[in-house]
Each structure stands twice: as C-alpha cells, then as structure tokens.
C-alpha cells in the first residue's frame, strides 16, 4: 500500500518562461548598403545584431572615392574649383569659398568688400540649401514623406535665384580666385529679399509638421546620444557638435569673410541626441535668413573681383578688347604660380569644419591638397551612437548625422 503524500504545486514547479541567458541566440551579421535608401548615398554598414540590439557596427567607406586630392595635383588652382563643387554636392558654392580662401591666403590676394559680401551671401544660401535637403530626406527616413515635398518646394525657389546668379542649378563654378564670376544684379537682390521674407513662415511650417509630431519625437528623442566630451574626442564639428552643448562655430571662433560684422546667434543643444541635432539645424536656418537679411540690406558697393590682374582673371569683356588684358588672361590661365608655402584654411560648412590644407611648391599646380571633410570625421561618431541602440534607430541616427559621401570619400 502506498502512502499518499501531500504535494502543493508552487510557481516554481510551473514551466518557467525563458530567462535571460537561457534562450539560445547567436549574433546575426547584417550588411546594410551600399545601395540602401537610408544610407544617403553609398555607405555600407556591417552590423552585428543581438536580436534587435546593435552589438557592433563597421562603416565601410570608399564606394564614392573619386581621387579628388590626387586630381588636384594635376590641375591649376582655378581648375580645382570644378572638383570642390562636387565634394558636398548639397552646398557646392560653400566648398568653392573654402578653396578660394585657401588659395588667396597662400598668394596674399586682397578681396574687395563687395566680393566678400557676395561670398557670404552664397555661403548662407548654401547652408539653407543643405539643411533643406537634410530636412526633406530626414523626414522621409523617419516616416514624414510629405516633408520632402515641402523642403524641395523651397529648394527649387532657392535654385531659381542661384540659377539666375550663376547660370546653373548646382555645381556652379561661380567663384574666381580674387572674387566672384559675375556681379550680383540689383533686380536679383530684390528677388532674394522677397524669398527671405517668405522663408521664416515656411520654417514654421516645417516645425508644425515635425517638431511637435509625436512619431517624429519618438523616433528622434534620446536616439544616438553622445556627450560633449565624446564628440570633442572624435573631432565632430558642426551641428552635431553644437547639439551636445558645445557652442563652437568657426564663423565666430575663427572668423572669415564678413562674419565678424554680422549679428547672429549660434544655437546649441543640451542632450546631444538626434532630436537636438534636428533642432539645431532648424534654428541655423532661421539664423541664416537673419544673416542674409543684414547682408542684402547693406551690400557694399565696389568691385566684385580684385583688380590685381597679375593674379586674377580679368573680365572677359576686356580680354577681347585690350592686348594687355589678353596677355594677363593667358598668363593667369596657363602659368599662374603662387609662392611656395603651406596654408590651412577652415570654413564652417553646413556639416562642420571644412578645411583645405594646401602645400605649394611654387608651381602652377598644388603640390599636395588635403581636404578635411566634416562628413568623414562626423561619420566616426556613428559607432558610439549606434552601439547598444535598436536596429530601427540606425536610420534616424544616420539621418541626423547627415554625412555626404561625396565629401566623405572624396
């Protein structure tokens, strides 16, 4: 006869749900790109995922390497403008300004005030152009597809102005060593002023669409956070650095062109996440309109290119009529040699510090050109931002970093 024993079933006796460590999972390797709509060009991200968490991320660059620095060694100083345009193709003229300032610093060419003002104007227009594309594409990446339409509406109107000034929509080749290609006509200033008067209301529209949008907020807030110390260690510049609370802007820190005379604020974030980077860029657009307003209201009169014909291309009209100018033109195009030396000039492009290091051996071609592209260095922040994040967040992180592969791979 068997004896019955009392047995109470407790929770511990029930089959347990798998705890942490019990579940067998192995990391998954995933390649994102190089042809992927969210990588903004041709970046490949080799990801190692643990479930939905990113354990490791290796960005693979070089899919758009075009050998620009090597090309520079075989091009004259004026010719290289063509390639600087295609560095960050969202803001071609701002790259040209950087290169022009570098060469002028080396050769010691004085640029007239009006030319400097025109350069400052186009620099700010380019910042708007780059931020508009960023807003449109960043919107698409985070699910706000209509944002693309709003941003490109304004960009097309902006391109109309640049088209009228330079003759091309993008990649304009408008700058010359010592000035700019053509004067800014008075009727175009009126049109630019009208565009600027309208634009702040359009920024309000963007904000209405995104800033308070709950989905956008959830996609961006707290995503891709880095501290100020980390950002400085990595060499991050531009809006990505300012979003962490470091108010470094080369337009203030190492002023060039007419920026010291202008009134504008440098927006800074507090948390250094994707949402702060968005807010900083939106505020920068407002500040750019403020700068443009000041410049267009008091555009200095005078020459738009330095009258230093030994160093600067003479105006085309005079080349056809005067023997002297023709000789100058011929000499400048074929055999213009700046002095020996090395210079570094940095400008604040839309993505950060765009620097050109130029080593001259006193020949008509640069001996070596090194481009310090902000996109390449900001891309290094992808690792600390993405590791530990959810897989779905990587799209928002890449969108908020906003690197341009043309500039990154050079």
């Amino acid at each position, binding site marked *: 006869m068997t004896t019955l024993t009392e047995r109470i079933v407790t929770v511990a006796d029930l089959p347990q749900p798998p705890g942490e460590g019990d579940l067998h999972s192995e990391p998954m390797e995933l390649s994102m790109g190089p042809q992927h709509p969210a990588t903004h060009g041709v970046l490949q991200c080799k990801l190692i995922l643990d479930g939905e968490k990113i354990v490791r991320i290796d960005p693979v660059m070089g*899919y*758009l390497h075009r050998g620009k620095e090597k090309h520079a060694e075989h091009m004259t100083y004026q010719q290289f403008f063509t390639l600087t345009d295609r560095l960050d193709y969202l803001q071609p003229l701002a790259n040209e300004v950087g290169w022009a300032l570098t060469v002028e610093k080396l050769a010691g060419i004085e640029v007239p005030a009006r030319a400097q003002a025109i350069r400052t104007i186009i620099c700010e227009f380019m910042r708007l152009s780059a931020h508009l594309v960023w807003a449109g594409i960043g919107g698409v990446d985070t699910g706000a597809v209509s944002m693309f339409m709003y941003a490109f509406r304004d960009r097309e109107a902006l391109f109309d102005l640049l088209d009228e000034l330079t003759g091309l929509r993008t990649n304009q080749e408008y700058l010359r060593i010592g000035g700019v290609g053509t004067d800014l006509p008075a009727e175009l200033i009126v049109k630019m002023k009208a565009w600027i008067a309208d634009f702040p209301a359009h920024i309000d529209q963007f904000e209405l669409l995104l800033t308070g949008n709950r989905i956008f907020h959830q996609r961006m807030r707290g995503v891709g956070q880095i501290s100020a110390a980390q950002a400085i260690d990595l060499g991050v510049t531009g809006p990505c650095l300012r979003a962490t609370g470091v108010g470094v802007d080369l337009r203030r820190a190492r002023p060039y062109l007419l920026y010291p005379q202008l009134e504008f604020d440098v927006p800074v974030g507090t948390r250094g996440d994707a949402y702060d980077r968005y807010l900083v860029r939106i505020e920068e657009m407002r500040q750019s309109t403020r700068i443009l307003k000041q410049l267009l209201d008091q555009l200095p009169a005078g020459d738009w290119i330095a009258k230093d014909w030994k160093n600067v291309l003479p105006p085309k009209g005079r080349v056809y009529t005067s023997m002297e100018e023709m000789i100058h033109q011929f000499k400048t195009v074929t055999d213009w040699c700046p002095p020996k030396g090395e210079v570094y000039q940095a400008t604040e492009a839309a993505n950060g510090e765009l620097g050109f290091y130029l080593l001259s051996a006193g020949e008509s071609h640069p001996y070596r050109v090194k481009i310090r592209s902000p996109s390449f260095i900001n891309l290094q922040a992808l690792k600390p931002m993405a590791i530990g994040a959810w897989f779905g967040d990587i799209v928002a992180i890449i969108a908020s970093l906003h690197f341009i592969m043309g500039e990154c791979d050079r």
Partner: protein
Amino acid sequence: MGVEEKFPEVVTARLTDLVGWARKNSLWPMPLGLSCCAIEMMATVGPRFDLSRFGAEVFRFSPRQSDVMIVAGTLSWKMAGVARRIYDQMPDPKWVIAMGVCASSGGLYRNYAVVPGVDRIMPVDVYTMGCPPRPDTLIRAVMELQKKIAELAIDGRRPREPVLVQ
C-alpha cells in the same frame, strides 16, 4: 469595316502596341543614386518637376520590383560589382538610363578610381549629358525611353540602339 463598326464600344489594337503602351506608362525606376546627380534625381521627383506626370515616380529601392535603372552619379570600381549585381537582380524587360557625364563616360574623373562609363558593366539605353543634368533633361530621357519601349516587341527582346539626350 471591322469589329469597331459593329461594336462601337470596342477598340482594336495590336497586342504589341497595347503591351508597349502599358509598359511605357508605368515605369518603376530603380534609383542607383551615387552622387551629385542623385540630388537632381530627387528634385525630379519633387514638387516642381513631378516625374509622376510621366508615370515613372514609383521609385523602388528594391531591384526586384523595378524595370528601369537610373544610374545617377559617379560609379567607382569599388561600387561597380554592386551595381552589376543590382542590375542582374532586376526582372526582364529592363532598361538603363545613364544620368550625367560620370555615368555616361566617367566625366571629370579620368583616374584609377572611376569606371569610365557604366556601359562597361551594363547595357545603357539612354545617355544624358550635364554635370549634373537638369531635371528637365532627366524627364526628356524618360520620354525618349518611353518611345523606345513603345516600339519594343512583346518578349522585350530586340537589339537596342542607345539614345543620347542633350
């Protein structure tokens, strides 16, 4: 004399024409956005130029859903294998638009890194000029391609003469 007289609601057409008409008006581009041209390609889809007027605005980033590949930008040798693989994944019949001088011939970049024209690795139907081409030029390229597609045989096989859009 014919079916149309007896049945006024019926329109007769050759099957080739019908298929060509359907094909050309619903192009699904695969945007291989590589560099500067990609921005102008986006502008073409944008509000002003609006490629959807030509039935070609459904940009699919998956090659298996697309039938025309727009190579927009500089193709480097590192990217060339990837581009060819994407092209191979597209179902037939498929077409290629080389947008801009870099895609057409290598353009400015005559060096070690850049493929001198995407026709080295895939057949091209329409070449476009410009660096980058204006959106109008890309629309013109799509229209030229539509003309070619309308003339295509039903099985999609026919020797193809490339077109240059200036």
